[in-house]
């Protein structure tokens, strides 16, 4: 029973830390499935987290914060789109640039505006997202096994958490059951086929990039307005890259993305939980090792355990009509 409770706690925190990963990885999925590689997920998320923290900090209004986060993230996504779609630039370089811009600008603007060492003001009640209890959570809590699973694991999350998980089947549906999805997948595989079918490659890819920006914006807002009560510099801490790894690990498929993110989230939750606690049989493990574990696993998984991950064939290649 003691282990069961510990497990519930770990799983609950798994869900908590997986949400930004899922949102960011789905964001990357829209972009990369359309053939635009995006290593700027991290930067967009960071900028969005800052925008959310700043706007919500001033207005103490969570919705305004979320809107600002999405707007900033979409703006950066459009910069990436302009560089890689219209100007046919190198998508990796553009993504790296966005990461650097976000890392630097959030600190400079934060210091200039709020003078709190790069942080945004603490968010009060109105500026934060609140958790929601599912119906009857309190009543069911007493029932063994099912009770804690419902009340502690499934209930008591932010709306954004439920949104993130709902976006997984929604993305699947969009991708495989709508015209937009068919065209999106096609343009990532062979833009020539899309062009000759009379569809604008440019507009289609821009729409994909905007989807990516919107989701990254939500991910960023979750970080500074839900998980914590304000923006702290560098608070994404590589989550954008982990999301990217999860996306590759999931072979660019939405449901796989969710499981991959949950796996990475679980490792993260474990590392937090086990810090300072001795492991059975092994004994005390240095905290640094536990913190490094998710990243070590990422390398191992990507190095060969997942089989061949074939990216969208036209990924990273600007579309030029051939003569």
């Amino acid at each position, binding site marked *: 029973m003691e282990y069961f409770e510990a497990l519930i706690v770990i799983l609950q925190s798994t869900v908590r830390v997986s949400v930004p990963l899922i949102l960011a990885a789905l964001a990357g999925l829209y972009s990369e499935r359309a053939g635009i590689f995006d290593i700027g997920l991290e930067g967009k998320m960071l900028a969005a987290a800052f925008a959310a923290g700043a706007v919500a900090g001033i207005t103490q209004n969570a919705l305004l914060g979320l809107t600002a986060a999405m707007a900033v993230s979409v703006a950066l996504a459009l910069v990436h789109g302009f560089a890689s779609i219209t100007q046919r630039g190198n998508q990796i370089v553009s993504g790296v640039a966005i990461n650097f811009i976000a890392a630097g600008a959030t600190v400079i603007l934060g210091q200039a505006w709020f003078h709190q060492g790069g942080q945004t003001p603490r968010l009060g009640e109105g500026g934060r997202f609140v958790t929601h209890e599912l119906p009857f959570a309190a009543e069911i809590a007493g029932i063994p096994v099912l009770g804690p699973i419902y009340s502690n694991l499934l209930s008591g999350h932010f709306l954004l958490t439920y949104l993130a998980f709902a976006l997984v089947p929604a993305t699947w549906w969009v991708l495989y*059951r*709508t*015209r*937009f999805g*068919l*065209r999106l*997948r*096609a343009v990532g*595989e*062979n833009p*020539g*086929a*899309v*062009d*000759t*079918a*009379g*569809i604008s490659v440019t507009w289609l890819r821009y729409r994909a990039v905007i989807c990516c920006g919107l989701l990254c914006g939500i991910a960023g807002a979750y970080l500074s307005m839900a998980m914590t009560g304000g923006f702290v510099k560098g608070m994404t801490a590589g989550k954008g890259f982990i999301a990217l790894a999860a996306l590759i690990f999931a072979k660019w498929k939405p449901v796989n993305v969710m499981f991959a993110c949950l796996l990475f989230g679980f490792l993260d939750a474990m590392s937090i939980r086990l810090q300072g606690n001795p492991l059975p049989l092994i004994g005390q493990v240095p905290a640094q090792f536990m913190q490094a574990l998710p990243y070590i696993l990422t390398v191992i998984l990507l190095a060969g355990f997942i089989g061949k991950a074939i990216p969208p*064939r036209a990924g990273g290649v600007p579309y030029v*009509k051939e*003569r």
Partner: protein
Amino acid sequence: MSDIAIELKGIDKSFGAVHANKNINLSVRKGTIHGIIGENGAGKSTLMSILYGFYQADGGDVFVDGTRTVIRDPNAAIAAGIGMVHQHFMLVENFTVLENVMLGAEESQVLTAGITKARAELRRLEEEYELEVDADAIIEELPVGNQQRVEILKALYRGADILILDEPTGVLTPAEADHLFRILRQLKDQGKTIILITHKLREIMAITDEVSVMRRGEMVATRTTADTSVEELAELMVGRRVLLRVDKDEARPGDVLLAVEKLTVRDSRGVAMVKDVSFDVRAGEIVGIAGVAGNGQSELLEAVSGIRRAEKGRILLNGEPIDVAGRTDPAELRARGMAHVPEDRHHMGLVLAFEESENSILGYHTDPRYVSGAFLNIDGIRRDAAEKMESYDIRPRDVRLRTANFSGGNQQKIVLAREMERDPSVLVIGQPTRGVDVGAIEFIHKRIIEMRDAGKAVLLVSVELDEIRSLSDRVLVMFDGRIVGERSPDANEGELGLLMAGVTDSREAAA
């Protein structure tokens, strides 16, 4: 309603300094198959891309069905009833046939209802035109011929009445090409108008009703196919008389320079592609290997040239064995007198992004003529490349031009010049004239004969039976990884064709 399906008047198009189409006029009669022939770079594809809305003409008008039509993008072309089958298929390879056919013509935002309708419509088209394809098959798992049928279905699904096919047989086996022609005749019988772009004279003669010839961006003539001849068309294309038949003397074979004994080679998937193959090539003779593409010729070539390991067997070069099962090294073979012109110049013969002069030394770049110490002798390389350009008539004469900017024929000459000028004792050539224009074919054939007459042993692999017959002194036919017969090049075409299909007569079986 007019009798003319497509009329082009004064179409003009330039790409920078290149004047691709000069004041082109063309009329295509309804319900006919109209061929457009010309050498690579004559402007055929550009003209058709303008008609399909891929490019905008700088000047001139397009009339479809007698009405002036502005075709701004492929959408407008589709709306005007024009469909196009591109040389490189515009298909999403990991989509199903159905998804590819639907793409861009889905009818509604959500696919579910559209899919059922599309499936029914596809069925109907397949039956009406006898274009059988499995709607749920994944494109990349289909043979090339079927992929092309999907392209045709795509156009028909969009209601095309005028179908443009750009070099449709370049990727097809002879049998698939024959099938395609049957489909095209059927489409014509049903009232469709077909424009066939090609540089193969035989195809024009076999299937078209009328033919227009393009040369260097200009439309030089239009003929009724029945009233013209291969010779006349070739002359119109090239602008001078062309020898289609290769002149050569009797071969005077000498010693065996290349011997292949009981060779077995597996491909990268582990399937045996060459099975127990033995043959000799003597000095001063050309041995041609005929066969439908994919019967092991490619793997044989790769094993002989040291690129692919063989599982069993021996290869003797100038009487000395090659380590076929161990680490075979193309560079070592080259040093021992073997030159190799690979089948696919884009993937194996050239680095397209390199300057011409750089490609002219690939594989021989350690030759003392090209290096001084650790550095390349750039001047020497360029001088040498310029000499080769002169003697092989490679155009344009610019050793610093990116190789991708040369035409197919000139690219092939770059490879040939590099390999032949080393004075090898054995020359191994795959598909010497694939994607090469008529003028260059004549030149390349002459050079190959010259190599033979200079006492080299030449092993020639080609899927063009005509080429094999006109060049070779002996013809070996390969089928399913085996040599199924040896014939004289004068053997009749039907007999060779049967061998290529794997039909061996009893005489062969007894031997």
